[in-house]
């Protein structure tokens, strides 16, 4: 199995493989996101309690899901980077972190905007919003550490250790924040956890979730390709890739 994986530890092979994936991932992402959001916005029936404001769910829930999924992915990359010393995995940390941070921001922003018509405030210390805010800080920490060092390799390894420390802490932070929230808010209705959703709402939500999965994958692929090129810029193959494209104007 490792023999099969080994070529992808080298930059060029991974770059080409990701290049083959990128158009498919982008097309799937565009298709599923457009269908999911369009269906959710215009064709799904309004919620009997929240009216049309619930339509934010079609972007909020997928973003929240993959903001956490991306952190897990980053931690797995960090583990591979530290244990097997594979450089592509180190670069994957730098590729995943900004994508995860933007998804976290999206989840945070949509949650806050949704809170305004529901609770009457732009910011409510709701358990999910609070833990998304903390997740954003964790992402920023990893990114800041990654780029803080003059030596890129040291920065990547330090960020990898931090990502692993973070992933141990994320469940604890979640549990503590939810517990804290139940302590202070008593019996507020959680608008995000719907016990049962009618199929007409669930279908576009699932399509949107699939769309965000492809979107996350496509964004990470794009950034990982950039990161590989950046690190291998002195190699002839990378210059060839960029030089050819520079003449055509990207």
């Amino acid at each position: 199995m490792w023999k099969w994986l080994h070529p992808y530890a080298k930059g060029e092979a991974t770059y080409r493989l990701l290049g083959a994936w990128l158009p498919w991932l982008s097309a799937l992402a565009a298709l599923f996101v457009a269908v999911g959001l369009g269906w959710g916005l215009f064709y799904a029936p309004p919620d009997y309690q929240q009216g049309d404001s619930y339509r934010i769910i079609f972007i909020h829930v997928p973003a929240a899901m993959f903001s956490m999924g991306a952190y897990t992915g980053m931690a797995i990359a960090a583990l591979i980077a530290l244990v097997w010393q594979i450089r592509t995995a180190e670069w994957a940390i730098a590729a995943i972190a900004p994508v995860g941070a933007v998804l976290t921001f999206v989840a945070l922003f949509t949650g806050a905007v949704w809170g305004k018509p529901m609770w009457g405030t732009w910011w409510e210390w709701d358990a999910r919003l609070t833990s998304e805010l903390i997740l954003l800080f964790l992402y920023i920490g990893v990114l800041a550490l990654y780029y803080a060092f003059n030596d890129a390799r040291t920065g990547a390894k330090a960020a990898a250790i931090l990502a692993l420390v973070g992933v141990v802490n994320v469940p604890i932070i979640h549990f503590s924040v939810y517990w804290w929230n139940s302590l202070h808010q008593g019996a507020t209705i959680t608008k995000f956890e719907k016990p049962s959703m009618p199929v007409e709402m669930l279908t576009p939500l699932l399509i949107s979730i699939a769309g965000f999965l492809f979107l996350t994958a496509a964004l990470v692929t794009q950034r990982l390709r950039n990161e590989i090129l950046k690190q291998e810029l002195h190699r002839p193959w990378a210059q060839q890739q960029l030089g050819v494209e520079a003449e055509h104007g990207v």
Partner: protein
Amino acid sequence: MNKASTWQFLRTIMQRDLAVALRRRSDIINPLLFVVIVVTLFPLAVGPGPDILGRIATGVIWVAALLSALLGSERLFRDDFLDGSLEQLVLLPAPLPVLALGKISVHWLLNGLPLVILAPLCALLLKLPIDAWGILMLTLLIGTPMLSAMTAVGAALTVSLGRGGALLSLLLLPLFIPLLIFAAAAVESTLVGTSAYGQVLLLAGLMLLTLTLAPLAVAAAIRVSVN
């Protein structure tokens, strides 16, 4: 033979750290003064009424403790890194996580324990009801070893950076949140007259987890920083 020598290394390093730190007493005293001053600022900012002070006392003392833990943490490995003894530590024929745990213990002894002893003074200044003093000190006693262990991770990660101060707080403060929540909740539930048993047990569990895993992370971070 090997086991005995690990203990010897550990003892020597802890004794050395203690001696060095005791020679620089201001590093121990200044964070404590910081806590007292922060605690003093709050009544001036929000008014000296006991109703509001008593409510925020736990939070203020704990946040001040978190911030003071960050203050001196940059120096935890900095001097050892600059004079090369951190490299020697890596090369010792003893498991690095054990040595890291030794350094964390010394740090706690000099920075965490005094904070626990100082807590009643802060509680007095903030008019925390006297029934809650014991539980406040207990949460600090359980929580400060976690603070020392986590700051050691952050300090080891940023040791080779010239100025890691602001970055260090960005990395560490989000990780302190569970500690803050459970510690504050323990004191809170004592104040309202219910048992804080559950929260204290959770804190103790977190402390054991942190003290088990943090030395491994510190060791890995030192290896990365030294190379």
